[in-house]
């Protein structure tokens, strides 16, 4: 019983950055922009969030800085793909590579210098608002993510004129334009918003889970979010649930590795398990997925 509770608690913890990243990516892609900068944006959120906490000595500073860096990354991408109409693949991958490079460079200059000692901050502790323990023993941002942010994104997309405008510019920008919607502005705002959520996802890793910054700390979780969006058919809740599924398999394999009965199984295989499950889930659910109508297409009025 405690094993199951333990896995469940870890699932929500591990699922938090995925839920944030996938929600952010849903907003971008619904507006017709494939944000391949997500991996780099999460990385920058993780690093600069950590840097702010490290330099100020207060972990609380890390949260707004992580979000702000994510918004800035979203703005940069919007300048390339919305204003200039550059290929979304090129701009997104370039943004990811560039941000990772910048973070590693600044880390070397400011944080790690030449010392081999790992710089550390005191991360946020866990929080148990009800005093029930077990699954309820979580970071505050995990609560905020699943109870506030994801529902807000879902409501935003489904119940507000902004969400309707985002869907319209992602499906048929000509129609949106004729209806008097400023296509570029809506897409830019979607990217800013999505970027902010991705930056927060990155900051969660350093400020909550780890308490330090190491190279390659995001470790492909941004790419997983891309798959989750397709898995969730561009809807926030299903994408987030996909993230929870991925996190559950990850949490399970962590525990399996230390169980004596599983010592015969190579741990690399267990490590790969979440990704195998993702591929399987995508193969099953991704078939016949209907992409947004204006996916990858820059909009120019002729």
């Amino acid at each position: 019983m405690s094993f199951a509770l333990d896995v469940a608690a870890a699932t929500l913890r591990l699922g938090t950055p995925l839920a944030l990243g996938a929600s952010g990516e849903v907003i971008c892609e619904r507006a017709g922009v494939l944000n391949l900068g997500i991996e780099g944006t999460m990385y920058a959120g993780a690093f600069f969030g950590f840097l702010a906490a490290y330099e100020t000595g207060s972990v609380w500073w890390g949260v707004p800085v992580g979000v702000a860096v994510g918004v800035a990354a979203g703005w940069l991408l919007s300048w390339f793909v919305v204003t200039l109409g550059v290929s979304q693949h090129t701009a997104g991958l370039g943004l990811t590579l560039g941000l990772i490079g910048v973070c590693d460079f600044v880390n070397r200059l400011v944080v790690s210098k030449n010392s081999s000692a790992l710089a550390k901050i005191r991360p946020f502790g866990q929080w148990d608002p009800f005093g029930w323990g077990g699954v309820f023993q979580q970071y505050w941002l995990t609560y905020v993510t699943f109870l506030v942010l994801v529902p807000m994104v879902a409501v935003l997309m489904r119940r507000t004129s902004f969400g309707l405008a985002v869907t319209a510019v992602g499906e048929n920008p000509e129609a949106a334009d004729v209806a008097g919607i400023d296509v570029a502005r809506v897409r830019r705002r979607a990217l800013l918003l999505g970027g902010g959520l991705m930056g927060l996802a990155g900051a969660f890793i350093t400020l909550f889970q780890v308490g330090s910054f190491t190279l390659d700390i995001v470790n492909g979780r941004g790419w997983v979010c891309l798959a989750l969006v397709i898995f969730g058919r561009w809807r926030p809740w299903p994408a987030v649930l996909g993230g929870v599924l991925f996190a559950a398999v990850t949490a399970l394999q962590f525990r399996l590795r230390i169980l004596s009965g599983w010592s015969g199984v190579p741990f690399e295989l267990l490590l790969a398990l979440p990704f195998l499950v993702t591929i399987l889930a995508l193969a099953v659910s991704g078939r016949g997925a209907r992409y947004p109508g204006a996916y990858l297409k820059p909009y120019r009025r002729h």
Partner: protein
Amino acid sequence: MRPPEADHPPAVRLSGITKRYGGLVANDQVSLHVERGEILGLLGENGAGKSTLMRVLYGLTTPDAGSIEVDGHPVRMSSPAAARRAGIGMVTQHFSLVGPMTVAENVTLGATPRWIDRRALESSVRQAAERVGLPVDPTRRIDDLGVGERQRVEILKALVNDCRVLILDEPTAVLTPVEVVGLFATIRRLTEAGLAVVIISHKLHEIRALCDRVAVLHRGRLVGTSSLSDVDDDELVALMVGGHHSTVPTERTEPPTEQPAAEPAPGKRLAHPERSDTALAVAAVVVEAPGSGGRRVLDRVTIAVGRGEIVGVAGVSGNGQTELVEVLCGMRRVASGSVHVGATNVTNASPAQVIAAGLGRLAEDRHGAIVPELSVAHNLVLERLGQFRRGWRLDETAITRHAERMIEQFAIRAEPHTRLGTLSGGNMQKVLLARMLSGDPVGLVVAQPTRGLDLHATAYIRAQLVAARQRGAGILLVSEDLDELLSVADRLVVLSEGRIAGELAAAQATAETVGAIMAGAA
């Protein structure tokens, strides 16, 4: 019937609207007004500038010169949003609806309150729909609707926004006859309440059935406005296809008179199409629209083009012209019937086989036929790379030499190594023309060869087509420009709804006779 102009400023007044695209003048000093409660027909051939003018009014296109007044007040139509605020609504030719969203969402798009209550939205849309007499179910998804219903949604969308001037761009093109009747009844009812309507069409009988007044555009200029009771159809057709201020040389480009005995040839060929050696032939060709359950886009079409003959295909676009060209080029399969190039049967053959049989093609969409990143020289040999090889490598010397020859012969303004994408439309078309003709083809399929080109390039391309005919090629010329067909073709075939609606020798054809077949059958 209508209040005199002095009391009311017109609902909309356009003054001196001019819009140029490169060298092409789409609108030339057009001034026009619409009264409240009036239905104005905007008539003209394709490319006459009707849509451009209306896009200017709706803020989708910024004019180079001219001004717009709504109810007597000057308004700058900087965007569709500005136009909507000024009370202008437009139903574009290609619908602007978001497929996966519901009717209610589409209707309120751009004017939705910050927070959406779907129930309230749907009931308000339902009420609005009933008020204007356009029954649609607001909860249905656009993707699940038929075209007639989609159009009702479009009109509703324009109307809910406190619209005082409604623009309809070829609204009947996609409708069945029953739906057209319903649409016209709706429009009339709306104008009784004071709405001004501008309807773009090139179907005369529709304009006559619906409109109070008509304005005719020809090559970007307003060539006449009149109350419909003051003009007859012949005058309108003449204005539409001829214009008063026509600037393109429309005299027939006669073949050089080295063979005066062959002068009545067009008429003879009409009588005996198989007499001369046939260059291109489609026989009883049937093409079905994919996924339509057998709806025929070409219905038993038979056309034979002899060597040394130009057969023009006239008709309103969307009546099977594109499919006919695709069938000949090996791009579309036929359900039955046969296709020949010269003596070779190329029914359902691949494009490569069709080219090998001696077909030259000048595609409707010239950008689809070139590789803009490659040089002029490489584009020129793209269809015949096999002939420009040395071993496994391309013979660049021969390619460049070939390009130099073509550039001189066709007066292309470019160097062999210029990137094709940097050329003007006219020069691009000359490259394609050179590519087509250098293979010494038996038959040519030429679609809209001069669309969007300036006068000079237009004249040049037409002259080259005539020259190719003199060298013995058979040409099938598909064009929406009736003047073009009349000036180069020997024989005309009019396509309507996938069938041949009429066929006549060019010698007997005039703008009026062809226009009447087009307007009558379409």
